[in-house]
């Protein structure tokens, strides 16, 4: 009986309890101008390398790295509330347009003069620029890579052109084995083919290009490869096929390499095949990972922010990340060091990056992922007519972009 009474008493306690808990947040910490909170969603190896590098700033600046799942959504919600938002965040460059338009980001050139960024690869700075301002300090970048299993595909057999790849696929796709697999209906992966043909998903002015001739050509050409790949297309299937030796080659991100190496595969990395029709290689998107500064922090903690940025501009961090996790540094200076040039994965990414396209960073891109995904699914998996599907998708993309405003 007394237990039940206790339950009722809880109502009264609620108020006291809630107000008690309310104070136990981390507001006090936030006001301290020498504490910098950075959100990220990176794997442990990368986070540790960053942490180690930023600890050098102690005790003048105390940096807290917080891992945040669903970082992009959370930033939309808390971005303009200095109490809840971080001071900086570490993420790919493709969201800077959204946050810049929302007014929650400060250009990093407010803090670091533009001239000092000359050491960075042009591609990474281009990626970091939205409407003329640089919003990201690039740290490293990722591109997709052509990977092959040496057990099946010798170094000489690696296709130089897409037609050679096609021939290889025809010959080797049978009995549960596949010559080549990729996530053919995922926009991030299919984009390499579309850009290799000179097509595009969306241009810098925010106009979708799904129905332009080059895109259509790319989809038609790509379809014949898709027909020799499994119907299931998400990463788990594709990566497992490759990892288990059921697929001889694949196009995948560098993050796959540690997994396949751990399973004992002798994995080779090669340049992207050249598309016979156009003479360009498959040109995948690159994502530039780097650090963004929130407006509130830039205005109120500029000193600490500057120290953090300068620390991350040292080439050390690039070298450290290349060693820790096979990341390709954005700072050209890193490529003077032996530790970096001796890593074939990093060097293969650098080579691919010469033709790669930075992911569009404009807000309109947000809707393109879904629309393009639907288009690819319609064409590749449901076998719908290409010309009609692109028209429908283009119209839909335009409609959605219209609705963003």
């Amino acid at each position, binding site marked *: 009986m007394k237990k039940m009474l206790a339950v009722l008493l809880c109502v009264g306690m609620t108020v006291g309890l809630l107000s008690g808990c309310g104070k136990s947040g981390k507001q006090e910490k936030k006001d301290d101008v020498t504490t910098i909170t950075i959100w990220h969603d990176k794997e442990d190896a990368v986070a540790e390398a960053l942490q180690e590098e930023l600890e050098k700033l102690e005790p003048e600046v105390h940096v807290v790295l917080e891992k945040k799942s669903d970082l992009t959504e959370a930033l939309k919600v808390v*971005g303009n509330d200095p109490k809840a938002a971080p001071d900086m965040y570490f993420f790919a460059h493709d969201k800077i347009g959204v946050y810049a338009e*929302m*007014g929650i980001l400060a250009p990093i050139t407010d803090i670091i003069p533009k001239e000092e960024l000359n050491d960075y690869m042009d591609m990474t700075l281009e990626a970091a620029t939205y409407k003329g301002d640089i919003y990201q300090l690039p740290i490293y970048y990722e591109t997709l890579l052509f990977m092959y299993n040496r057990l099946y595909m010798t170094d000489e057999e690696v296709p130089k052109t897409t037609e050679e790849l096609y021939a290889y696929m025809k010959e080797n796709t049978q009995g549960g084995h596949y010559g080549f697999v990729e996530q053919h209906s995922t926009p991030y992966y299919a984009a390499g083919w579309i850009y290799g043909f000179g097509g595009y998903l969306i241009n810098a002015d925010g106009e979708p290009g799904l129905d332009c001739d080059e895109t259509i050509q790319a989809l038609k050409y790509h379809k014949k490869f898709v027909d020799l790949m499994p119907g*299931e297309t998400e990463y788990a299937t594709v990566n497992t096929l490759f990892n288990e030796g059921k697929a001889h080659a694949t196009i995948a991100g560098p993050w796959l390499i540690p997994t396949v190496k751990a399973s004992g595969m002798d994995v080779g990395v090669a340049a992207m095949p050249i598309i016979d029709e156009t003479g360009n290689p498959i040109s995948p998107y690159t994502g530039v990972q780097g650090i963004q500064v929130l407006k509130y922090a830039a205005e109120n903690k500029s000193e600490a922010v500057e120290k953090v940025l300068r620390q991350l501009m040292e080439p050390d961090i690039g070298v450290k990340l290349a060693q820790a996790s096979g990341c390709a540094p954005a700072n050209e200076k890193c490529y003077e060091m032996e530790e970096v040039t001796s890593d074939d994965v990093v060097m293969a990414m650098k080579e691919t990056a010469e033709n790669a396209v930075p992911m569009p960073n404009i807000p309109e891109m947000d809707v393109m992922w*879904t629309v393009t*995904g639907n288009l690819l699914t319609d064409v590749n998996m449901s076998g719908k007519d290409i010309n009609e599907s692109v028209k429908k998708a283009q119209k839909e993309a335009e409609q959605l*972009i219209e*609705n963003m405003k």
Partner: protein
Amino acid sequence: MNNRKKKWSEVVFSYLWSAPSLILILLIVIFPILYTGYISLTNMNVYHWNNYEIIGLENYKDALLVFDNGFLTALLLTVLWTIINMILQLIIAFLVASLLNLKGLRLRNIYRTLLIFPWAMPGYVSILLWKTGMFNSQFGLLNQWLEKFGIQPVRWLGGNVSAFLSCTVVNLWLALPFMITIIDGALQSVDKSYYESALLDGASWLKRTFYITIPLIKPIIAPSVVITTFTTFKQFDVIYLLTQQVGAKTGADIHTILTYAYEKAFITNNYGYSSAISIIIFVILIAFSVITNIKPKEERQ
């Protein structure tokens, strides 16, 4: 006079006692609806994040464009989805609960605990397990079993019909533990003496079920059934994660009104516009429940 005073104090007392609960509901359930209604009248979007202003019914005008054929198809599918799922859920849950209540069943508590297992996992974990572990066309358990019988692998989530059925299976798997527990509890509360006279009359199991059991448990399970019906109608995760997730689309063209609205509005980051769509969907839902009159009736009085 005295009577009136007493009545008045009863009212005060009632509201006083229910106030904490009602205030919480007001904050967490009702406030978001009102706030969404307010935002739907503004131009809050990426370009006007902080400096949004009221623009009247503009968003609703745009929103009506979404309600095209695709939306109608999705609406029909949602209704079909709700009906099929609820019927299956009720029938299966009733049968299982009846079995669990058989006289002399010794292991019933073990069965009960095992059957509840799906409930003890976060939903996204279960859906992921089903998607990659069961339905995957290359490695999924279902196809591995088919292979043993020499049957060609099936792309379970590829075709519209098979994807719809697969989603239904997963939804049932997720929802049945709750429904079984509800009906199980309701069955136990039925006074056994009703059956004795019926047995004497020689009524069959079916007859007893229809004339005694169902009428007796109906009022008890009604609130839970209504809440489950709404949850089924609003179901997003199962269909989205199994078939429509960006980067992992399976080619099945099945959309409920929520997944449809998601692709047509929420991805635009235009909060005003997507709020308008949410409000319209809400109104449609209410209209449905009024038309079909699904609301728990009160058995008291």
